């Protein structure tokens, strides 16, 4: 702001801010803005609509009518895709792996974050420093030794095993986020309970946990997107088709049957649509959660 702040200006006087004054130029500007936004909308949504349309067409119509909506609805595509891609067992695997990983993550990260935020003990600074340093080491770079460790522990093709690995890879960031939520809670709450003789664990579960629910929601959202969508670690550790998750199933379906376009679009819709619907239903919490960590104030 080079030299534009004149101290004699009555700041905050013109409360009708620049956003609300509309002249002829303003209208033109708005038209431009909305035109650009519609372009963005087309570029994000149309490809998805295209997949949805394609999933309901016959194979012949895919070639004759590339752009538009289907002339008839071929729901058989979904039935076939579900059966050929083994969708049922993939969904079970994905739900089991993601659910277990998130339960382990919250159960393990919460007490750790609480201890780092509220207890005084020797070595606290060290534990915190390790958590921060670990955030700089993305788990992908140690995929090979991780594979070795999992193999030695008999965790290859083991869905509970990969759930532990996922929980471990999300651990540093989660501890860090939860700790920052615990730090902001007032000390009086806890002191009162301790005078009444409540144990630390009881305080954590009955008093603190309800208060940091937004923090837990935040790590669950982060964790869900990350684990549900993950291909890399699953590719590394789940080699047997009978235990594979949705992303692995999609890729192998695509590689085996890449001429069955309509089925393939149906499979893509089955796996993508539920997540989008969940997102649209709770997008306020979703976006508030994601931006809360990044932007203060």
């Amino acid at each position, binding site marked *: 702001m080079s030299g534009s702040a004149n101290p004699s200006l009555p700041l905050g006087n013109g409360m009708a801010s620049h956003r609300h004054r509309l002249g002829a130029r303003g209208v033109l500007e708005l038209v431009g803005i909305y035109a650009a936004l519609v372009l963005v909308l087309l570029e*994000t949504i149309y490809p998805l609509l295209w997949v949805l349309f394609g999933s309901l067409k016959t194979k012949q119509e895919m070639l004759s009518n590339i752009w538009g909506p289907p002339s008839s609805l071929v729901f058989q595509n979904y039935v076939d895709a579900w059966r050929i891609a083994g969708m049922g067992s993939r969904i079970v695997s994905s739900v089991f792996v993601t659910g277990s990983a998130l339960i382990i993550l919250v159960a393990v990260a919460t007490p750790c974050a609480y201890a780092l935020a509220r207890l005084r003990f020797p070595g606290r600074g060290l534990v915190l420093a390790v958590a921060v340093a670990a955030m700089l*080491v993305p788990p992908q770079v140690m995929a090979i*030794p991780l594979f070795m460790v999992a193999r030695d522990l008999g965790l290859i093709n083991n869905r509970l095993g990969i759930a532990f690995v996922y929980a471990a890879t999300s651990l540093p960031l989660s501890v860090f986020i939860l700790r920052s939520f615990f730090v902001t809670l007032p000390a009086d709450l806890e002191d009162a309970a301790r005078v009444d003789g409540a144990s630390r664990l009881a305080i954590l579960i009955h008093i603190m946990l309800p208060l940091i629910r937004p923090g837990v929601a935040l790590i669950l959202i982060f964790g869900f997107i990350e684990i549900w969508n993950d291909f890399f670690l699953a590719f590394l550790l789940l080699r047997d088709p009978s235990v594979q998750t949705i992303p692995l199933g999609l890729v192998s379906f695509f590689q085996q049957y890449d001429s069955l376009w309509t089925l393939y679009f149906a499979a893509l819709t089955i796996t993508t649509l539920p997540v989008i619907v969940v997102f649209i239903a709770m997008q306020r919490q979703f976006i508030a959660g994601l931006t809360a960590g990044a932007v203060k104030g």
Partner: protein
Amino acid sequence: MSTRPQETAPSASRFGRFVSGDGAVAFVMILPAAILFCLFYLWPFVNGFWLSLHNWDGFSDPTWAGFSNYQRLAHDRIFLGALRNNLIFVVAVVVLKNVLGLGLALLLDRALVGRTFFRAAAFIPVTMSFVAVGLLWSWIYNPVFGLLNGALDLFGLGALKQSWLGDANIALYSIIVVDVWKWLGFHAVIYLAGLQTIPSELYESAKMDGAGPVQRFWHVTLPMMMPIVFINTILGLSGAFVRNFDIVYVLTKGGPNHATEVVLTYMMSKAFQDGAMSYAAAIGYVLFLIVGLASVGLLALMRRQKLDV
């Protein structure tokens, strides 16, 4: 913190004080996290370095190799090419996500009606898996009946049609576009949250000083947004180095002729196609060093700019 009232008289030894204070409770609370972390984070990290100093196929006895794996890497043309592709990928996606993300956020910030709707629409690709995004785009890029070439035909631009993933000269850039498409909404939403914290008085006073929209952007918006630019750069940077395996694997598997090979795809093919486990571990370590240096450098820069975020 005071000690617990119901404890017995504090013992004089260090251990006694540790147990009677918060130490024991803290130990129990941290233990599960520590076990999980040591097993699947710390141990692989240490073991990976040990592995990279040996020659091992994963089954027979490992033999000591010193730094020979690293020396071989320095002369491995495919690896150096993958490193170069990886750096191009990182720089391109970080710059594009920031510039386009800020642009989109400025548009969303001005939209009076339907802001929530447009914001949600822009965010949808973020919720999709890389695999779904990759498979979708492999259809968009399909040279025969893909959406992109079809659109070019539709607008009379048929001369620009390409084999988007098959041409070694443009395949990497085609992949970069996909990554930016997936993450744009995420960065735009963070920029939007930042824009909404700028007090409107700053714009008012700049306006009274006769600053036009472009000047207001350069002298008010951009300086106020610098912390957010750093956040977006850090988020984009660490992701761009290590989150490109899925998308490259789905779209091109590193081809044609290694033109889109990135460090992780090369590491995985060395490990699981050639069985060169220790060589692959060394590749992982080199990638770690690069990501670590880039992150530490960026954090140091932030600290010097007094951007405490």
